[in-house]
């Protein structure tokens, strides 16, 4: 009788099974895992969770100031409709009571209550618009920007209905004739497409600040990375009390308003 008896056979079979089962996890554990740096990290701004902090007290020092709105709408080819029904908005002024429906403090500072508030897409951590989009034309990027792919938008307007902040506008009409001067570096949209603020992702990729932040004459806005404890936004949030729009909805907006 050559070779193998029952006892050895069972030993070898057992050993093989153990090696076989542990092989994959072991191989994975030993395999080097070079963390692939995302393109955004290679060039331009390095960040993990973008946020915008607005100081309403500094904002609108000059009455009727529209510097940020004009700058944003100019470089992003946002059309200007006179009819409010057709209006397209990326960043706009909202009355305090409407912007902060949940602020029940009747006796909050008058300087806050009396001025309109600048509102824009909140780039929520938990964006309802993303969940309802049937074509993934809107999605949340790694760095938290709620991005839009206008090529893919079919104009179903589920996102418009889902957004609790009214941050999404639908192009009911061809926007081109209503753009004063087309910026050729940025596309326009067509009829039947939803649009909104995209946190100037095209500028961030080049290492430029947000257009609204840059344009503000009062420096009332700060943009930065929430993941970085030393960033300007974190410093501001550490030292001042901040409110967000409709926090009870659990969408976790990253646009903060200092009070």
């Amino acid at each position, binding site marked *: 009788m050559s070779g193998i008896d029952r006892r050895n056979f069972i030993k070898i079979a057992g050993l093989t099974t153990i090696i076989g089962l542990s092989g994959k996890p072991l191989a994975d554990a030993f395999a080097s895992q070079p963390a692939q740096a995302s393109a955004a990290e290679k060039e331009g701004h390095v960040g993990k969770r973008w946020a915008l902090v607005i100081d309403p007290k500094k904002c609108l020092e000059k009455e009727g100031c529209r510097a940020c709105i004009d700058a944003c709408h100019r470089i992003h080819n946002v059309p200007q409709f006179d009819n409010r029904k057709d209006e397209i908005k990326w960043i706009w002024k909202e009355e305090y009571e409407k912007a902060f429906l949940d602020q029940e403090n009747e006796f909050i500072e008058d300087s806050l209550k009396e001025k309109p508030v600048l509102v824009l897409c909140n780039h929520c951590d938990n964006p309802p618009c993303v969940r309802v989009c049937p074509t993934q034309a809107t999605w949340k990027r790694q760095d938290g920007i709620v991005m839009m792919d206008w090529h893919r938008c079919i104009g179903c307007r589920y996102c418009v209905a889902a957004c609790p902040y009214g941050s999404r506008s639908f192009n009911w009409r061809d926007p081109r004739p209503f753009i004063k001067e087309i910026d050729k*570096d940025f596309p*326009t949209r067509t009829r039947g497409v939803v649009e909104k603020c995209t946190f100037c*992702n095209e500028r961030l990729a080049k290492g430029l600040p947000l257009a609204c932040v840059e344009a503000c004459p009062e420096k009332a806005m700060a943009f930065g990375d929430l993941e970085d404890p030393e960033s300007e936004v974190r410093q501001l949030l550490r030292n001042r009390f901040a409110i967000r729009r409709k926090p009870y909805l659990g969408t976790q907006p990253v646009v903060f308003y200092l009070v």
Partner: protein
Amino acid sequence: MYDAGKIITGLILFLVLFTTPIWVNLASGTSAERPDIKLPVDEKQCVAATEYMKASHMDLIYEWRDQVVREELRAYHSLSGKEYEMSLTKTCLGCHSNKAEFCDRCHNYVAVSPYCWDCHTEPKEGI
């Protein structure tokens, strides 16, 4: 078959008449005039080989679109080793600045109407 002679003659006549354009073209030795496109003067090198661009530029542009919008990648490394920004309006139209005499002539010839221009603007386009 009744009236076989008439029917067959009629069929032959129909076929000859129906295919007249082919015979006329063959006889005269001409074909439809190919589009006369204007190539950029200053730049000789495209992002990929001419043959590939002729046949598949739309695939390349679609790929660029998805990479820029969805993957956050903006640099394209061509086979010649040059780096380009993946941008229709900046890179493509940067050289092919005459849309009417480059893009449109060919697109009209093959009767396609890409909707790129519904949103993206040609550098010189006066709107």
